[in-house]
């Protein structure tokens, strides 16, 4: 299974974007993003706290729909999913 991970803004600068990655069936949101973020310590620290939980300000989406942080550990990804991870928005 292949999924795409898109980071935006500060997260993108640290972790890259449009990352295509192979995942095993049953992989959940949180471990997937954790494994990608571990490639860059500053990027990891931007997204996760010292306990390995998402910072409370992080916003997650799956195929354009919000995934609550409290659901991330139990939300599976499936083939073709687009996962987005970004900081608070600042448009306008």
């Amino acid at each position: 299974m292949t999924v795409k991970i898109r980071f935006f803004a500060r997260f993108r600068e640290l972790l890259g974007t449009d990352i295509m990655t192979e995942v095993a069936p049953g992989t959940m949101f949180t471990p997937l993003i954790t494994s990608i973020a571990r490639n860059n310590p500053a990027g990891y620290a931007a997204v996760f706290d010292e306990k390995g939980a998402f910072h409370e300000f992080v916003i997650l989406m799956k195929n354009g729909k919000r995934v609550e942080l409290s659901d991330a550990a139990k939300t599976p990804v499936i083939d073709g999913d687009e996962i987005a991870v970004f900081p608070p928005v600042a448009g306008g």
Partner: protein
Amino acid sequence: MIAIQIDDVDIGALIAAAKKHGTGAVVVFDGVVRDDGITEMELEAYEEVAVKELEKIAKEAINQFGLLHVDIIHRIGRLTVGENILIIIVSAGHRPDAYAGSRYIIEEIKKGVPIWKKELTRDGGRWVPGEHGHGKGHG
């Protein structure tokens, strides 16, 4: 017209097009790059999601305030001081609805549309902190 784009727009032409039958007021919001000691501003969007959310906000504004026309154009890319960032044009039969509808749209954009700004300075740059209401999540 609802768009996220690099190019600027002709505000005069949009105002003319907004004067639908029954229009008594057109309100234009033009957000511009402020001279805060920056060299440029860089804007980034999660475009597919942002456009959908702008469309939803426009529809809500039309329903809530009886607007006759709505344009929302949010620019991305690198912009210099004084350039247009966000143009909102609404028309309504009367000014209270036009003003209220315009205000509603900008406040909703600030709450939840995935767009980010980075202020570029001679020393580097800084991301403009988002309003930490955790995003309203129109999706």
